[in-house]
């Protein structure tokens, strides 16, 4: 399955690993923050709707 990378295998694989790691990290962080704020906002809106009638 793995292609033959020759003597540069370490370089190529580390480049892919680092880049994909950074990208996935950014995506996960963005999604997590989005979810957290969405929930927090929904909570506050519900609460204020209740108190304001």
């Amino acid at each position: 399955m793995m292609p033959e990378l020759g003597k540069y295998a370490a370089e190529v694989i580390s480049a892919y690993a680092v880049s994909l790691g950074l990208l996935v990290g950014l995506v996960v962080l963005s999604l997590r923050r989005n979810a957290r704020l969405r929930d927090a906002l929904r909570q506050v809106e519900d609460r204020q709707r209740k108190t304001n009638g």
Partner: protein
Amino acid sequence: MSFWEFANPKRFMQLSSRLLPWVAGLSLACLVVGLIWGFFFTPEDYRQGSTVKIIYLHVPAALMAINAWLMMLVASLVWIIRRHHVSALAARAAAPVGLTFTVIALITGAIWGQPMWGTWWAWDPRLTSFLILALFYMGYIAMWEAVENGDTAADLTSVLCLVGSVFAILSRYAVLFWNQGLHQGASLSLDKEENVADVFYLPLLVCIAGFVLMFLALVLLRTRTEIRARRLKALLNRERMA
């Protein structure tokens, strides 16, 4: 539908929630296809060996690193001129994405440089400009974080972005003047002679499309987050006042 409908937060939330899954899905598809194609099914370059496969990350990241700053510049101008909050928040949302792309370009370039030039780092103009670009991104993000009041932060970062753009261009020329480089020139030009061979070219285009779409998706998502953060803060403030 006018483009300015995006400036209304409510409309933006509606439109973006419909758009986001498509953009995200498409970008994922492009990235998966492009990267797998590039990594597994392209031959080695006769000079560079397998390291040529790094191009599928390096070039799209480098392109988008610059384009992200351009997008921030446009968004800042829109905020200054038309005072559309969504625009300012989109600029804020784009900065960390741009910084990540810059860092990816730098790191993959450094890894590539070791076998090709025999050094991790050289003060090549293009590399140097990217280092400076990374510093600009860091300063811009730090500025947003440092100012508490949203509108003040938007104003200050917009001014910074404008002035920074001028100096970024100036730095680019200064650096070119300062040192002739090792880095190859643009090889995606339309001139077929200079272009990389087709085997590398097609998967590269797919990867670039993937990065563009991914940038779009991330900016949409993060802008939604920022809008919610603003609203949340305002709601909590009102609660405290009452």
